[in-house]
């Protein structure tokens, strides 16, 4: 096993899948020759040639739309959108076609397409480079959306995404691209899409998170003094959401806190809290809570800390829900 960063794990997975499966193609703006602005696809064009690894013109709609055509005609496209904030022109193709072809053609055309997108904040970036747009994809029937938080899961989930017969949006929290290494097996393996992971077992509170925030949350929990025990769940897949794992946990702990860097209204936590209310209401010892960004445009770097989920905010939210008495 090798020690890898999140970024290296993705690069190695693309390499492995391209080697095993000649139908896998990789493309995007600057994704070919340069290997992407983050170097996620570095070295692939040299190894697999310009037909299979290529730079596209700046045209997100054409990137997604051509992936639809390629998938119908025998390829497995793994397209890169440079930053999730720039996917909007491509959203037309995602919502109108990518998510619908299976249903529209009554199962004749399924689309094994993966769209990779760096996402999330915390890197002091310019406008449109810091958003967490999970809801926009999770709200579209027919799409899957995954957000790994570790190098191991990045490889396993990306392998599963490439093998998946349906379109998968693959979010890469850019803040953790190079944040620490982990043992990642060389050989192929998958992490099942749609399965959450219990990161830490506990009996008094269930905290659900994913992506880069989950990594910060683990540090915050290590620094949090309490005699209560906390169960931490990494959601890993946003759609289809493993609400069963969360509901089972809440039935045990009676308390739910969902932490993310999304804006608040209509976010992933809203849906998770609704499902818990529907299926575990009688087990609740406190109203389900969420800690997330505010309903504002993500501020530019000098104001980004207001929106970011830091340790203080996490501790405050945990203390509040643990202290709640009916």
């Amino acid at each position, binding site marked *: 096993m090798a020690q890898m960063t999140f970024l290296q794990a993705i690069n190695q997975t693309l390499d492995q899948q391209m080697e095993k499966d000649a139908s896998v193609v990789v493309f995007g703006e600057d994704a070919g020759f340069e290997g992407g*602005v983050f170097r996620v696809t570095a070295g692939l064009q040299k190894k697999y040639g310009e037909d299979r690894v290529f730079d596209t013109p700046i045209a997100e709609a054409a990137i997604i739309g051509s992936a639809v055509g390629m998938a119908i005609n025998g390829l497995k496209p793994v397209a890169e959108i440079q930053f999730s904030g720039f996917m909007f022109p491509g959203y037309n193709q995602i919502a109108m076609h990518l998510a619908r072809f299976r249903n529209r053609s009554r199962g004749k055309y399924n689309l094994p397409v993966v769209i990779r997108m760096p996402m999330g904040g915390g890197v002091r970036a*310019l406008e*449109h480079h810091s958003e967490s747009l999970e809801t926009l994809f999770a709200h579209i029937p027919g799409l899957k959306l995954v957000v790994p938080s570790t190098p191991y899961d990045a490889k396993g989930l990306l392998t599963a995404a490439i093998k998946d017969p349906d379109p998968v949006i693959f979010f890469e929290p850019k803040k953790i691209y190079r944040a620490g290494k982990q043992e990642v097996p060389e050989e192929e393996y998958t992490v099942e899409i749609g399965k959450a992971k219990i990161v830490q077992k506990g009996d008094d509170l269930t905290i659900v998170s994913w992506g880069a925030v989950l990594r910060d949350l683990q540090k915050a929990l290590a620094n949090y003094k309490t005699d209560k025990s906390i169960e931490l769940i990494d959601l890993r897949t946003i759609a289809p959401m493993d609400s069963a794992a969360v509901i089972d946990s809440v039935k045990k702990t009676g308390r739910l806190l969902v932490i993310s860097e999304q804006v608040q209204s209509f976010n992933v936590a809203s849906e998770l809290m609704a499902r818990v209310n529907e299926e575990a209401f009688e087990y609740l010892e406190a109203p389900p809570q969420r800690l997330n960004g*505010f*309903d504002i445009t993500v*501020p530019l770097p000098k104001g980004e800390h207001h929106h970011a989920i830091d340790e203080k905010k996490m501790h*405050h939210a945990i203390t509040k829900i643990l202290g709640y008495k009916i």
Partner: protein
Amino acid sequence: MSIVDRFDPLKKKMFQVLDQEGNIVSKDDVPEIDDKTLLEMYRVMQLARIADIKALQYQRQGRMLTFAPVQGQEAAQIGPMAALKKTDWLSPAFREMAAFLYHGVTLEQTYLYWYGNEFGSRFDDGVHVLPVNVPIGSQISHAAGLAYAAKIQKKDQVALTYIGDGGTSHGEFHEGMNFAAVYNAPMITIVQNNQYAISTPRHKQTKSETIAQKAIAYGIPGVQVDGNDVLAMYAVVKEARERAIKGEGPTLIEAYTYRLGPHTTSDDPTIYRKDEEVEEWKKKDPIIRFRNYLINKKLWTDKKEEKLVQELTDLVGETFKKVEQSQAPTVDEVFDYTYETLPPYLAKQKEAYKAFLKESEEN
């Protein structure tokens, strides 16, 4: 005959007034510009250059955030801005610091934006410049709308917009161009063809021989111009403005130029282009060319140059100091511009956050 009639983009004819050394190549095409304006054009070109070099240094010292350097493209921005009226609109992309400075944005505002503060996008009243536009291609239709509004309100006003060579690949480029052309909107589009879109070379963006020839499909004039020749850029925009005001619609101008610096400070251009290529383009530096012209015209001397550079260097240093001392956005500021009136749920979020901050301070 007009410039656009003489320089056919299909024949790869590029319009030029000054050669690389600053000598006049086409006497009849030298635009009439008074000395005061010529010197102001030069001053702002130098200001942009110095501000750009300093910003790069500040960024490398960790004092400035990511920014998009303009070095090498000053002529493609100052020429056009000098040919506009101050009441004309500028709908920029994100590499137009020189154009901003000439058209009324202050250096402090420009720096504040790249320092990561939204107030760097709030320009003074009467300044007709839209904020930095990050999503590629989306500014063209804004310009089409500005121009359409000018037309039906019978204003003596045009809208000028900038985009890069890579931006012309974008669907929205086509949509905006076509819209403006259909309605004869007084719009001027300048494509700064600086040869690369981040790492991707121009030939991977379009199979067209020139970008200017794309105008033909929209039914409007298109012309390729030496983008490092400030007088050529001035002349072609002056003419495009006259056509636009007469109701003859948009013009597409390809400014053939080069980005001497990285795409942004996050980019390493040595991965995708050779030093020799950059060195070749340094010989075509638009500022050196214009300075030679001014010296030949007896408007400029080495002494004046030395004085100006010192003056601008001091100004840039002082301005950045001010920016570094600027206040970070307050809680009210990050919430209050979301709507004219903060809805109750959002007001509640703000108040809860303020209470949290107060509590954290006390503990």
